[in-house]
């Protein structure tokens, strides 16, 4: 066990804890997990116990093409997938006008690659609704049943499967569930779709150094003799000038344009020129709680929401946005790329303030306030060892002095309500004092994608 963590625990314990809190903290304390990136093939089997992948296949999941011939999932290409996407969304809008509910969801999102080569998988999804039997009405603890074969007495345990098998790794949507018609596209396209839905708030003009690399092209430069577009007014002026100096314009009151002499160099054209485009720039901090308690849906939700925000930023601010990624348990770490941010496994305890402090340090150290609009998005399950936010709130207040918006997402576990973070945020009064600067969104564990997008709107509107 981590001695530092133990020390922290002792300190907290001295201050007094409820039994429930104690248990929560202890469970994280004794969590032996590490923050490794997931292995290619997660090895979760223990000696003597077979590990099963989730049993989902009914008899209808089998088919001849894959079973007999080994023809499996097909990969569609980028080009094929792009065309219908716009059309489909257009169609969906039309549905609303016709008085029917929308049917298309834009779903399943990212395939992080190392070194910033993230691939976002944009998949329009839908479901055809029919009257069908719902077999999932029984409580899930009872689990399903299936067929089996081989040795074993009745009642004997023959194998196990981790409850949060695919999630404990912090892998989120897209990972591991690549369907047959997955459509690949990059973050840009996802952002394009999301753009309809939201916009960065409180954007202010700040330092513009970053914009130097960005140009727009416009027909603003003039050029005599040749070019792309004849500037008629300027040309006429030039012709008049030439004719005056030639003495070809005897009576100013009665000009006869048909007698003008036109020299080739009188023609004035406009040509393309490169214009520098100055835009405000933004720095976005993504903070993710990767403590042990985040295992499961909470991480998926937070990561998915951050993917959505990240994708949208990439599109909307055309790489003008700089992003920083910070992971925290009891200590905060800055990581280099989105891949690491997205995939690091959960483990350890929780100290929210550590992440806030790190953001403050970075901002101060690099003097970011001067040049950047600063946004902070923080995702957590709301659990914090620092129960009343004694450390977190001051850091947060400091953060609010310079940031344009702080958006905190709490993905609650099914059984917990009014989490620590939520409680101390409310108690601090920051939410009501500065609604323009800080927003809180509380998600239930079973939130779906539309709910996530709703949440983002709330965070950044």
């Amino acid at each position, binding site marked *: 066990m981590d001695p530092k963590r133990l020390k922290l625990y002792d300190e907290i314990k001295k201050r007094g804890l409820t039994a429930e809190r104690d248990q929560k903290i202890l469970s994280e304390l004794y969590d032996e997990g590490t923050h490794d990136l997931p292995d290619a093939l997660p090895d979760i089997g223990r000696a003597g116990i077979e590990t099963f992948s989730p049993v989902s296949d009914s008899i209808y999941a089998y088919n*001849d093409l894959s079973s007999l011939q080994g023809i499996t999932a097909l990969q569609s290409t980028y080009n094929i997938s792009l065309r219908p996407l716009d059309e489909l969304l257009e169609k969906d809008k039309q549905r609303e006008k016709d008085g029917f509910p929308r049917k298309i969801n834009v779903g399943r999102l990212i395939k992080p690659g190392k070194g910033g080569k993230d691939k976002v998988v944009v998949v329009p999804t839908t479901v055809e609704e029919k009257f069908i039997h719902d077999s999932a009405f029984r409580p899930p603890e009872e689990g399903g*049943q299936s067929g089996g074969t081989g040795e074993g007495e009745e009642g004997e345990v023959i194998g196990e499967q981790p409850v949060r098998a695919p999630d404990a790794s912090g892998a989120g949507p897209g990972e591991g569930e690549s369907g047959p018609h997955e459509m690949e596209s990059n973050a840009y396209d996802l952002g394009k779709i999301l753009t309809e839905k939201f916009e960065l708030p409180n954007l202010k003009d700040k330092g513009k150094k970053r914009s130097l690399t960005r140009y727009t092209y416009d027909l603003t430069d003039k050029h005599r003799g040749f070019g792309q577009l004849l500037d008629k007014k300027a040309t006429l002026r030039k012709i008049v000038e030439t004719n005056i100096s030639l003495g070809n314009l005897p009576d100013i009151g009665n000009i006869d344009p048909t007698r003008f002499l036109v020299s080739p160099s009188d023609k004035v054209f406009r040509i393309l020129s490169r214009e520098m485009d100055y835009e405000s720039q933004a720095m976005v901090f993504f903070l993710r709680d990767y403590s042990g308690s985040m295992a499961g849906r909470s991480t998926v939700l937070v990561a998915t929401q951050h993917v959505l925000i990240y994708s949208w930023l990439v599109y909307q601010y055309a790489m003008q946005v700089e992003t920083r990624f910070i992971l925290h348990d009891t200590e905060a770490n800055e990581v280099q790329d989105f891949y690491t941010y997205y995939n690091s496994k959960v483990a350890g305890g929780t100290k929210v303030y550590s992440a806030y402090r790190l953001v403050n340090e970075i901002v101060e150290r690099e003097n970011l306030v001067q040049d950047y609009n600063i946004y902070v998005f923080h995702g957590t399950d709301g659990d914090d060892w620092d129960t009343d936010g004694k450390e977190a709130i001051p850091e947060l207040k400091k953060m609010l002095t310079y940031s344009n918006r702080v958006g905190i997402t709490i993905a609650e576990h099914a059984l917990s309500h009014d989490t620590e973070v939520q409680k101390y945020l409310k108690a601090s009064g920051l939410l009501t004092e500065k609604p323009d600067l800080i927003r809180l969104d509380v998600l239930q564990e079973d939130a779906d994608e539309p709910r996530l997008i709703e949440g983002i709107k709330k965070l950044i509107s």
Partner: protein
Amino acid sequence: MELIDQHTKKIMEGCKERALNAGLRFQDETLEYIVTNRDLLELSPKLMIPTLYDYWVHEVEVLKEKGRYELYPSNPYETVINTRPAISFYNDNNPDWLNVLIFYHVLAHIDFFQNNMYFRHTWDYDFTGQALSDKRVIAKLRSEKGRWVDYVIEFTRGMDNLVGYHEDLSRLNRPRATNLSKRLDFYFDVFLQSVKKVKINNYIKEIERYNDCVNKDGERVEKSFFSEVRRKYPEFNAIFKKSLKEKSEHKIDLIQYLIEHSDFLRKDENEWMKSVMQVVRKTSLFFQPQIRTKIMNEGWASYWHEKLFLQDDRIRGHEVDFARAHAGVTSLPRVGLNPYALGMRIFYYIEEIADKGKYSIEFKRLLDADKREKFDAETGQGQDFIFKIRENLSDFLFVNTFVDQDFVTRNRLFVAGRRLNKAKMVWEFYVKSRKVEDYRKMLLDTLYHPPYIEIDPEKGKNNTLYLVHRFEGKPLVKEFIANTMMGIEYLWGSPVQLETSEVVSTSPPKEETKEPEIKWQRVLYTIDNRKLSKKNI
């Protein structure tokens, strides 16, 4: 798409010859295509039918999580489709020996399609041809009506799992009419048994009395026989006449009902919608038998590819390759259900039992366990018997009739349960039961079974369409109800109501082993002007 080359086609023809000699029966013409990844991209959304009508949902990733097979009762990756001629699809780099295996598998599927009575309604036409003309109808309508065609397709597909498949089948599979009069049939088949519920000995007495009449009165038997009946049951004639009236109106499914009775569709400007609805309905009917014969169909094909491959002289030396491929397909998984493995074993089992003559009254009367064990009449009828099974049964009957304790014990099958171990945070799999009753129940529970929803014209007031969901221990998926009903309302043109059952509360089981208790409530959904409301009834 390209056809397979001549060399491979020759192999196929050789397979056909051997399969026919072994007793399989199928039309001689078949088409085999090579499919590429790109072809599959286009084919799989259309369920491998190249000519299926276009619909935007085919271009979208359809969410799989929720009741995937309940919603889409057909497999998007089938190798062979039930058309005339039958079309099958292949990888272009299969080695010859593997092609032989696949060809046998495919031929057994074709044999199944063309002989199993559940496919009876697909025998008289070629579906690809039909689908092509339907596709053109829809394309033409789409050019005139635009997106409204897609709405009609969408709303009709919302009901296409409720098509009256069994009603259609029963019209086709009528037993040959007897020479006897309807009145006589009604008297013996319905009146005595269902109305009067007479005891068996009385029933037999009536038959004897009828036979006496035949002997005594010859041609005029009916008159003399029924004069007695009239005396004994004066109400008989009235009941019989009433039954004739009831019989005449056959049952129709929801889509047909809308087509025939909807005021909205009757308007001139909406007439065209009916043809779209017909297309969706026909397409759905075509796919219905596939999912109801999955275990049998795959079992049958696996049984034959094994049998025929091992007898084939052309692929000597590939026995080990075969063993690997075959085991990959047909080994029983430790946990899970594999239709190939299960179906094939059931067929082998039935064959063996029938060979020994154990499906006879003689055997059933035998009570001595030892004698039962050793019973062997050496009938040699096993193969004939399984041919009859493949002709007449569906998955439900197949499992329900032939999965018995001996079968479960022999294959060491069990029901695998899954429970949460909270201490370790893992799902534990355990051997829940090795009893055949439980195993059979588990199997039957996994079989495709759409809800049964009837129209009750009496309860629908003021032109309301009143639907009744017959409760079978499961609720409907709640979040789908609103949009499905909205679609029906659109096509019906007036409010629609649905009576169904929902879970009110679940109380934890009183004893560890028991299932939790569930309280049900009958509810009535009403959709009026696209607004859904619900009340308890």
